């Protein structure tokens, strides 16, 4: 399905405005009922992504946010060889260290983009850390889930547009 193909391609690069409009164009060519279904799926996958200056993203689903690192971060780190995330149950404040990733180049700290309690972490990453490089935004490469204690913190994070501008500046 064309829309799925476009979605997969978008996941592999930094999410850009042209990517999103291409997604919308692809959708409008589908059948009416498919458009309904695809719109809601694509909104769930790409909408509500907020970004931090430490190149992390948060995707909100109800009261729980999924956190990962951006494609730009994964690319600059190189292949990850080890991922360590704090244990579920840990309460963190925004900006607290809650894990580290090691690539062939360096160990980098992971920070909590929002305050809350860590509810889940991606255990697949302990055996296959390179999933983060392969699928940084998706089902395989996410790092941890956090139950937000202060949802208003999301407002101060960067939108996809602001993040794109941020990384182009550097």
């Amino acid at each position: 399905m064309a829309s799925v193909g476009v979605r997969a391609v978008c996941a592999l690069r930094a999410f850009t405005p042209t990517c999103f409009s291409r997604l919308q164009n692809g959708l409008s060519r589908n059948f009416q009922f498919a458009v309904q279904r695809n719109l809601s799926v694509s909104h769930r996958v790409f909408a509500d992504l907020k970004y931090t200056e430490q190149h992390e993203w948060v995707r909100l689903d109800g009261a729980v946010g999924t956190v990962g690192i951006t494609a730009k971060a994964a690319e600059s780190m190189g292949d990850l060889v080890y991922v360590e995330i704090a244990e579920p149950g840990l309460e963190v404040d925004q900006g607290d260290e809650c894990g580290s990733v090691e690539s062939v180049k360096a160990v980098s700290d992971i920070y909590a983009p929002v305050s809350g309690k860590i509810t889940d972490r991606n255990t697949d990453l302990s055996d296959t850390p390179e999933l983060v490089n392969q699928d940084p935004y998706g089902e395989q490469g996410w790092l941890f889930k956090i139950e937000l204690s202060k949802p208003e913190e999301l407002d101060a994070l960067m939108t996809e547009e602001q993040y794109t501008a941020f990384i182009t500046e550097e």
Partner: protein
Amino acid sequence: MSSLLLARPSVRLLLLAAGRRALSARPAAPQPEALSVFLSQSHNVFTNLALEDWLYRNFRFGRHNLLMVWRNAPCVVIGRHQNPWREVDTHHLHAAGMPLARRNSGGGTVYHDLGNLNLTFFSAREQYDRSANLHLVADALRQGWGFDITVNERDDILLDGAFKVSGTAAKLTRNTAYHHLTLMVNVDTDSLHRSLERPLYSGHRSLEWPLHGLKSGATESVPAPVRNLADGAPSVSMDKIVAAIGQMYLKQAGKQASRGFQMVNPSDEWFPGLAALEAGLADPGWVYGKTPRFSHTFRLAACSNVEVEVQVEKGLITSVQPLPPDNSAGVSGTEWVRSILPSAFPELLASLVGEKYCADIARRTETLLLGHTGSADTCRSDRRILAM
């Protein structure tokens, strides 16, 4: 930041200058206006690692950057996510009185002694440039002694195109980056090879328990042929190497930027909070407890070659299971042991759960299974290894 006010005047000036930087907006990789070289007066690996930690936590680099120069008395240092039992023979290190440390940056296992020079380049995160640092060191060595020095794709510094004289690792945090590397000037290579020899036998010499049955996701070292800079170059001495590299570093931002060499005594008085960092690094809960989850499978020759699998998490044993052979359908491990060794005590294996894993786990398992008591537990003394 209030603890910084307790620091001595010269250090305080350095800290205030760095602190002013914190008020400015996020810049695009500015060049530093001042550079210093700190020479640590300590030879204790935990103290020096703690000092590195302290500097990256308490300084805001960017306008004033730092090169820390340090050496350690003989010890072995493993990378952040490594498995010490896979990398070194922990019993041998203990017998030799050599401390084992785990650093915060990644990479592999290294042997340090006073013939090994450690260099840590501190900068703001956006200024992090590993390649530039390595080439700086390479240039200093080439210009001073005419060595055939190259930097390869793994970021190793090679002598004569083949011998590794340096290993590199780095850590990146929100605002700061540090890149440290080792440089073999005059290392005792016999001691190095003995210390980095991976154990083939764990425990009893008469029984073979190869550690190749160790499965884990921990990062592994990549061995390479090594050589000292001083081999075949009599004019090389540690002091001269330090001077050459230090001067090359200080010249980078122009003459007015150099703040020169500074002897640093890493004490809690000068660096408030250092003692706590040092205690954390020397704690077995860090050195051994940070080991990624792994399993170790071995055969016990004295118990009819029964295969046992031990699972270890955070350095503690979480399960000890005898494994029945593949063709014995439905038989549990315990039943299998009872069937081949009626006098064994497989239920005693549960007492190992929660205990600290140690290199002679196979011998301990055998002792329990056979119901033997009173044999000296070499692991107990192993576990008391701290800073020496």
